[in-house]
């Protein structure tokens, strides 16, 4: 397993996709959040202020609420693209044939991909929370109190929980034998999450629960609803590893 994890980490670290994806998530979300804060501080246009939502308050609470809203959709999409690439590129590049006939099960290789993805997504989520804290401090939002620390922790937790809800993307990329197959499902995940909220499923829909939990400051989604992420993720880990175990190069 160690060799497979090392191999996956080296591939992700060395790739343009990995570097651009990391930058897009950490810098992109930070820049958008900072821009909204700047717009709130410099405009008197009531329509623009209304569009900025909670960020218009110009405080830590509003700033971080804006950030979790962006992370809920944009971060999810960013994570999903990386995951789609990690699995789908083996087929697109033809390297999948080299992953057969090794003294290592393909389930081990698939699990190694998931472990590296989890580690990367966790690192990006923590880094994003740190950068947001720096941006807020530099923007003069004041000292970081207990409430702000809790909001930053929710921001980081949202990123980590997004790992579970993006797992269908890896399965789709495997079944479709392509990165695009995974990306298509990533888009579908974002749409389904939004529609499920509008339909009133709320926290009972695992795809939407983490973002709702973070946006509501942890009030409208119960621990039981959040815990559904565990069986949701576990089901897809099993589906992914079984697909890799039974895989044949028949297309």
């Amino acid at each position, binding site marked *: 397993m160690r*060799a497979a994890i090392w191999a996956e980490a080296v*591939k992700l670290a060395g790739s343009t996709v990995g570097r651009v994806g990391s930058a897009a998530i950490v810098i992109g979300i930070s820049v958008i959040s900072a821009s909204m804060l700047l717009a709130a501080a410099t405009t008197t246009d009531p329509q623009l202020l209304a569009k900025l939502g909670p960020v218009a308050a110009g405080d830590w609470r509003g700033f971080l609420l804006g950030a979790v809203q962006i992370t809920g959709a944009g971060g999810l999409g960013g994570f999903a693209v990386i995951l789609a690439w990690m699995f789908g590129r083996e087929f697109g590049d033809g390297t999948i044939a080299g992953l*057969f006939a090794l003294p290592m099960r393909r389930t081990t290789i698939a699990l190694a991909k998931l472990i590296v993805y989890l580690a990367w997504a966790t690192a990006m989520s923590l880094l994003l929370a740190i950068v947001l804290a720096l941006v807020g401090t530099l923007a003069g939002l004041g000292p970081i109190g207990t409430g702000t620390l809790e909001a930053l922790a929710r921001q980081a937790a949202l990123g980590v929980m997004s790992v579970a809800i993006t797992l269908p993307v890896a399965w789709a990329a495997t079944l479709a034998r392509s990165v695009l197959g995974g990306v298509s499902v990533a888009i579908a995940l974002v749409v389904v999450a939004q529609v499920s909220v509008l339909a009133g499923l709320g926290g009972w829909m695992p795809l939407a629960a983490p973002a709702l939990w973070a946006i509501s400051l942890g009030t409208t989604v119960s621990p039981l609803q959040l815990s559904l992420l565990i069986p949701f993720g576990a089901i897809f880990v099993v589906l992914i590893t079984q697909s890799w175990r039974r895989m044949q190069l028949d297309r």
Partner: protein
Amino acid sequence: MTAALALEQATRTFRNGSGIFDVDLELTSGQIVALVGLNGAGKSTLMRVLLGMLRPQSGRALLNGDDLDSAPMSAWARVGHLVEYPLAYGELTARRNLELSARLRGVADVTAAIDRVITEFALEQYADRRARALSLGNRQRVGVAAALQHDPSTIVLDEPTNALDPAGVIRLRESLLRRAADGAAILVSSHHLDEVARIADRIVVMNAGRLIGDLAPDTPEIEHAFFEVVRADDERVSS
């Protein structure tokens, strides 16, 4: 002697009717078997079944006498293969790609294995270039080196001379002859009959998914003989 890799009456077909049919083949220690056939004859499919990339619908694929599904994982550490695409990730240097292959195969002294194979295939000047920046031929060299660096006792190479320059072809030829002399069981597919005739102990002809006969490596005008065998098979099937 138990064959290193073998197919016993293996059949694997696709929806369009193509595939391989009732194939019997054994790779034994010290022998180079060349698999020749026209495009679409089923050479790559045969190799995929042999390496577990496709499961036979009937018949068996065996590694050291065990069905592939029940063969110990450790047995694959002594197998080296290159089928269709080299295991070379574009974002990694040639050296890093070799390291990746060696680690996945559990090589004990990775650095020594890489240094040896870089010298063997004259990859020194390309070792620190990213694979995507290499020419097709040099990328193929990296793929061949990755398949051979762990000194496998069983080697399966699908069209390994594809895109190789003459120097690369000679290095590969010498490498395979040396490895066979050291006891490796080798299967190589190729379109280049003259080339395989120089190294093969046995030349197996494949046509329309079946092994239809052998050609002696010292057959005069071997290309002509090959086409005669294929033509006779086509006539037999159509009659």
